[in-house]
């Protein structure tokens, strides 16, 4: 019934390679984009922005980044938190050094700085893989957090050792600090997420994406058919870190406003984003979105259920929340190891035929 390719003829290779080859899917995607850009900004309030939408948008960017590295190129990384911190501190230094420059440029440059750092810490991947690479990136995580704690230049010698975002704007619209309107911060992050999604999709469906996936699936064969492993792995680290850096910059400047590095970008952040990618589905852009949504919305829903509906004390609910989220992750991974993206693929297959059995 839905998602049927019947009657939807492709007459060029360009059409055949497009992101949403099925017409129904394409229109649904346009509808979601239009709703996100044109409707949500008018109905958004501070609670929705801070509790759900901003964290979802920002984590989704990080998840897209990590998915490129781990899901598409097969290089396990536990350094996501550290790379987010690089993005955040780069953004902070840029914001304080060039106050008159647009936030857009700061955030993108922060991503660029993170890409360079990512390539540097990605170099061990040329010799080691799997668990050993995970340990090497873990070293990056701890080193970067230590660096930002210990070198006062990074936090501009502030007494608290924290960094806090000064008020900055884009075209006169305030984006950071306590006076920023919810719709502006939301739109700003949404633009970055949309761009990240588009770029990630374009890269993964083309030449670079194929060399990443070739390295992931069988690195020796990939090299023999002509993939330069150095180039493939380094571009994966660069692009991945670019997105993770942007997400870190937004997380600090737009969402939190003030950051203590060990707390905001610690090892638990690395694991959170890794869980998002695994639960959403490795090697799927949609999966990164779904995983981020799942792990951002689930705690909020559990809190609403426990505190508001059942009237339990907040601290008990907070603990239960951890237990339930953890249990759900295990149950989910046992039932569907390929994540929400795979679940969605199965649903689509079923919808093709629905309501008929064959």
């Amino acid at each position, binding site marked *: 019934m839905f998602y049927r390719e019947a009657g939807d003829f492709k007459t060029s*290779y360009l059409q055949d390679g497009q992101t949403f080859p099925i017409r129904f899917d394409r229109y649904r995607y346009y509808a979601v984009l239009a709703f996100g850009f044109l409707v949500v900004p008018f109905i958004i309030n501070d609670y929705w922005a801070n509790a759900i939408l901003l964290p979802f948008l920002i984590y989704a960017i990080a998840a897209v980044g990590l998915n490129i590295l781990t899901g598409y190129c097969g290089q396990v990384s536990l350094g996501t938190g550290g790379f987010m911190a690089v993005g955040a501190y780069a953004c902070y230094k840029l914001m304080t050094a060039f106050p008159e420059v647009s936030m857009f440029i700061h955030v993108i440059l922060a991503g660029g700085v993170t890409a360079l750092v990512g390539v540097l810490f990605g170099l061990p991947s040329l010799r080691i893989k799997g668990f050993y690479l995970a340990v090497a990136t873990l070293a990056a995580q701890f080193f970067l957090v230590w660096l930002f704690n210990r070198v006062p230049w990074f936090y501009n010698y502030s007494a608290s050792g924290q960094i806090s975002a000064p008020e900055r704007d884009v075209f006169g619209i305030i984006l950071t600090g306590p006076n920023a309107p919810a719709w502006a911060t939301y739109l700003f992050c949404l633009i970055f997420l949309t761009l990240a999604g588009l770029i990630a999709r374009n*890269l993964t469906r*083309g030449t670079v994406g194929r060399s990443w996936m070739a390295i992931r699936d*069988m690195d020796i064969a990939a090299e*023999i058919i*002509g*993939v330069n492993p150095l180039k493939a792995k380094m571009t994966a680290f660069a692009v991945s870190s670019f997105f993770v850096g942007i997400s870190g910059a937004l997380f600090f400047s737009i969402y939190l406003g003030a950051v203590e590095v060990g707390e905001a970008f610690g090892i638990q952040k690395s694991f959170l984003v890794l869980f998002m990618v695994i639960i959403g589905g490795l090697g799927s852009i949609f999966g990164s979105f779904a995983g981020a949504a799942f792990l951002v919305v689930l705690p909020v829903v559990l809190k609403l259920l426990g505190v508001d509906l059942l009237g339990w004390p907040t601290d008990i609910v907070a603990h239960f929340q951890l237990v339930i989220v953890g249990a759900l992750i295990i149950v989910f991974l046992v039932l569907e190891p390929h994540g929400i993206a795979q679940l969605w693929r199965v649903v689509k297959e079923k919808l093709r035929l629905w309501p008929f059995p064959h």
Partner: protein
Amino acid sequence: MLDQAEGYITDDGRKIGGVVMEMKNITLRFGGVVAIKDISFDIREGEIRAIIGPNGAGKSSMLNVISGFYVPSEGEVWFRGEKRPPMRPYEIARQGIARTFQNIALFEGMSVLDNVMTGRLTQMKSGLFSQALWKGKAEAEEIANREIVEQVIDFLEIQHIRKTPVARLPYGLKKRVELARALAAQPKLLLLDEPMAGMNVEEKEDMCRFILDVNDEFGTTIALIEHDMGVVMDLSDRVVVMDYGKKIGDGPPDEVRNNPDVIDAYLGVAHD
């Protein structure tokens, strides 16, 4: 019949050119084990060259030396008139040597189309930014290479599984997709490591037909390892026979078939 510089004409009228690849006194050691012992042979343009021998004779090692996966301990590899300097395998692929593997080495997580497209990676040069925007050079390059890939897909008759993930395919088709991936690179020298291993008679016949067609239509030079003697004797123009890392025979199939050393190696020899 065999002219050193000019090449020769086969019985069925195909013209075989000069030497494309020459292995000079190749020796390959792994620690104390000598896998290949001082072997020399050449491969001529447009010919189908077979490497045969009993298990453990060093055939696959020889193919790995040609494709650059192993660097020979001693000896020289000459490709198209030039001595090959030490190179990474992907650089050798860029010179126009493509191969298939004994145990299928396809990228299981990708579709057939994407797998065959990876064969074109050596030819695709658009930059990261162009690809990120999917405009200009990246798009044009994708379409141009897709056309070549579609020709290969048509040629090998795998149109119907174009969008199928490779992991879902049966063994025989996987072998064919792997051949497609190697062909997509439009190689000057195609190496096939046991292209018919584990196939039934019909699949073998199909594969033989494809190998002959490739050689016939594109003039591709092919070097292959195969255990099925009927296939080898029918397909190949010249045969190298290896045993325990040494070359024990080299020449046209008929000559090799009657070589006493070869018969000993295959049938065993009485030790009394």
